[in-house]
Each structure stands twice: as structure tokens, then as C-alpha cells.
């Protein structure tokens, strides 16, 4: 038996023996320096082996399918029909018809864009743009809903977010007065007064102009200009004085406001 073992070791290439002895040296080094037992080192080596197999399996199950799927799909090429030469009368007629349809569709799409002034408000970035047709008239910062959900016990809840979609200007007011709703008192920890109590009315806080979008939502001015560009409102859109004035003068009742 010893002879067989000796014969086998002698058959191993010199390089492999060198690697093996280096490996043993490495193990001994780790043993001496880190006071780790040989069995633990072999356990670690086993863990590395398991990890390698796991990686191979991940590659087989996660990455190889994608590669194969990409490879098996044939690419479609339009077969040119000899009977349908590109200079034939039929081809020219079909091409003309398609081009005509495209032009008509383009016109219909163009008509979707309001010819007069309209406003676009980005509630994620708190920015606005004022357009006339395709022309950008003014862009700048505004403030929109804070996404605060105010809870007053289990009974009352208010969500302070700016609605998204297409709106129309329904009202225009100069020197607007803010009639504080219930949530304004709840938010400040104050008792809710009666419907027309004098504490509900605040003057000057909405700026010089207000444009109503319906359901109580307004585009108005603000005293807190440092918050422009931030989501801090209760759902209304706040603007600075100059922008608000331009918007007020440009937009008419029925003008479109797109909020997203």
C-alpha cells in the first residue's frame, strides 16, 4: 500500500507539489498567527467551496436564462416583395395615404395644446411654467402640498396634498381674505371656533391675488417666501409676488392649469 502511495505521489507534477506545499505553509501560517485550529481552516475552505457553488448556481438560474433568451429570439427582417417595387404606382399611393393620415393626426394633436395662456405645475419639484401655446413665458419656484396627514383622534383626518390633473381657473380675486378652515385650528392646537367667528378671517396672508381651481384649492401668494420650492402647503399652490401677478394677468377664467 505504501508503495502505491509513494508511486502516486511521485506521479504528481512538481508544480502541483509546490502549490500543495505552499497551501500547507499558508495553513500553518494562519494557524500560528491567528491561533485557529486546522479543522476550522478546513471548515472555512469548505464554506468557500459552498459559496463558489452557490455563485455558480446563481449564475445558472439568474443570468444564463437571460443570455439564452436573448440568443434564441430571431430578428425579423421585412421581406421585400418583388411584386411591390418601391417605384410602383401602388406603393406611391399607399405612401401618400399614410403621409396624409400622419399629417392629419399631427394637426389633431397640435389642436390639443391650448392656444392661449396655460400653466403647468410640478408638485414633486415645486416648479411652475407659464405657457402661451408652445411658448414658455415664465418658469419659477412655487410651493405645493406637504403630504402631511393630520389626524385629530380617530374621527377627523386631513390630507394636505395638491391634487393632480387638468384644472380650469374658476375664480379670480384681488386682495383675497383667507377664511381659515377647521384644520387650521386643529393644526395649531386651538379650539375650533364657530363658522363665521372673527378669528377665522385672516387678511394679507394669501398675497395680492388668488386664482381658484375649485374644491377650495387656490393659486395664491405667500408671506413665507423662503419656503418657495418646498412642499409646505395644505394643498394650495403658493407663488412669489411677481410670478403671481403675471399669472393673474395672463390666466383668465377657464384657462387651463395642469398639475402633476
Amino acid at each position, binding site marked *: 500500500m505504501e508503495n502505491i502511495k509513494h508511486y502516486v505521489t511521485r506521479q504528481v507534477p512538481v508544480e502541483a507539489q509546490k502549490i500543495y506545499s505552499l497551501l500547507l505553509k499558508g495553513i500553518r501560517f494562519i494557524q500560528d498567527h491567528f491561533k485557529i485550529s486546522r479543522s476550522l481552516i478546513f471548515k472555512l475552505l469548505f464554506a468557500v467551496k459552498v459559496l463558489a457553488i452557490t455563485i455558480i448556481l446563481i449564475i445558472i438560474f439568474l443570468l444564463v436564462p437571460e443570455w439564452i433568451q436573448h440568443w*434564441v429570439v430571431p430578428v425579423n427582417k421585412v421581406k421585400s416583395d418583388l411584386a*411591390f417595387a418601391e417605384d410602383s404606382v401602388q406603393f406611391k399611393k399607399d405612401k401618400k395615404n399614410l403621409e396624409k393620415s400622419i399629417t392629419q393626426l399631427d394637426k389633431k394633436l397640435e389642436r*390639443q395644446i391650448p392656444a392661449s395662456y396655460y400653466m403647468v405645475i410640478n408638485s414633486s419639484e415645486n416648479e411652475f411654467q407659464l405657457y402661451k401655446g408652445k411658448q414658455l413665458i415664465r418658469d419659477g419656484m412655487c410651493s405645493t402640498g406637504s403630504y402631511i396627514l393630520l*389626524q385629530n383622534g380617530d374621527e377627523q383626518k386631513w390630507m394636505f396634498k395638491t391634487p393632480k390633473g387638468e384644472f380650469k381657473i374658476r375664480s379670480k380675486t384681488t386682495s383675497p381674505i383667507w377664511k381659515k378652515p377647521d384644520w387650521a385650528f386643529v393644526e395649531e392646537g386651538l379650539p375650533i371656533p364657530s363658522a363665521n367667528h372673527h378669528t377665522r378671517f385672516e387678511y394679507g396672508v394669501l398675497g395680492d391675488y388668488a386664482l381658484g381651481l375649485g374644491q377650495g384649492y387656490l393659486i395664491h401668494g405667500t408671506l413665507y417666501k423662503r419656503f418657495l420650492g418646498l412642499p409646505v402647503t395644505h394643498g394650495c399652490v403658493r407663488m412669489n409676488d411677481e410670478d403671481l401677478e403675471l399669472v393673474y394677468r395672463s390666466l383668465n377664467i377657464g384657462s387651463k392649469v395642469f398639475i402633476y
Partner: protein
Amino acid sequence: MKKILQRITQQFKELTGKITVKIWVIAGITIIALGYLVPVSLAPVKTLKHLNHFALADSVFTEQYKIINKSPELALLAKEKGFKEAQLSMAKSDSIGLKINFKDSTLSLVIKGVTIHAAEIKNYKIDKVFFAIENLTSAKLFSSPLNIQHESATIVKEPIIVKHAPKDAAEAAQQAYMPDTLQKNPAFLSMVCTYNIQLIVKQVEKESFKDKKIGIRFDFKNYVQKTANTIWSILRLQIPEYKPVIQLYVSGDDIRTIYRALPRNAMVVIYY
């Protein structure tokens, strides 16, 4: 001598036993791998056939658009016409929709036909299936808006902050909320639309470790989900479903804006 022979025979038996076990293990793994990879490779072909069949089954449409297959030039024109028809169809709805135009590399939010936000597509990958389908199929699929049926993202749709009503003015002053616009989580978005078309929108910014980590986690989650579905289909002896993917690389800010603006089941039009 007899003892040595017995020992050698025993060792030989042990060795052959080990080799047999190894052969069985390798054979088992090969069978599992083939059993997995063969259906997986059939999946896109099945999807391709299904899509082509769906489009060609509509005889009215086929008759109307049969010229597409006659010339590449007419195919392109028909595709453009289909895209514009889809846009017009989307404009009839009063909710915000998504327009993906690879010809001018823009990803836009559209409402009532008005483009309200346009983001530049910095890079993209379109699944080979979209170039393998018949031109008629392509025209049929994209001449009307697709609907987003399922979506997932690394950012929240509505960043809601719950606040409890203060008991008095002093508590209200303590609760004063200061918004933090600097906090922007890495944005990766996945949307599955009609015909199982998957749109993956990834942010181009990969500067921070957090960006990379969330990006890798998003990809891994997608892979795992896909693999789990595939394995489940194979176990039920079915060819797994294949989702043709359109992958877009856009700026993170644009993804956040687009994802938060899109309503549930939003419409999408695609032109490539």
C-alpha cells in the same frame, strides 16, 4: 498477500462507489439545469408566437395594414401613424399618461394631449422580441395605449407624513415641520403593462454607495422574482411566461416626478 488484495479490492469498491455518487450528482444537476434552461429558452419564442397570433387574428386590422409587410418604408410610416393614433386615444382620457419616444429620446408625461414634463432618455435597452415580432404585430400593439397593470419602485408614490393634532399651541410650536428636500432616495421603477411588457426605468446617477446598493438590490429582486415565477411554471409543467423588457436610463429627479405623477393603471404609448 491475500489481505493486501482484499484491502485493494475494498478501496477500489469505495472509490468506484464515490465516483458513482459523483456521476449521479453531476447527472442530477445536468438534468435539473436542462429541465430549467430548456423551458426558459422556449419562453420568448412562445411569447413571440402569442403576440404575432394576437395581432394577425384581427382580420380587419390585418386587411387595413397589410401594406406594412410590403416595404420597410411603409412599415415605418405605419408605425408612426400608430403612435400618433395612440397619443390621440390617450388624450381622450383626463388622467396623466406616459409617452416613450425612442426616436427623439424622450420620456414624457402627457395629459389631454399636452406634454407637461419631458425627460431625456440617456440610454436604453429594448428587448429583442420587439425587433422579432411581425411589423403588423408591432403596429397593432402600439397603435393604442397600453395600461400599467402592476408597478413597483424603490421610492414611495406619496411621501405621506402622519401628524397627530397637538393638544395646545405650545405642542403645535414643537411639532413645526421642516421639509427636507435634500433627502432623495435612489429611484428605480418597474412597470408591467398590457401584453406583459415590462418597463424598467433606472436612474443614471450612480455616484453614491447607496445608489449602487439600491440599484443592485432592485435588479436582484427582479431576477429572483422572475426566477421564482419560472420555477413555479416549470413545476406545473408549463412553459414560463416571458416579459419583454424595455429598460430606460433617466435622471433620478425625473423618475421621482414621473412615478409620483402617474395615477394607478396609467396609460403608456411607445414609439421605437
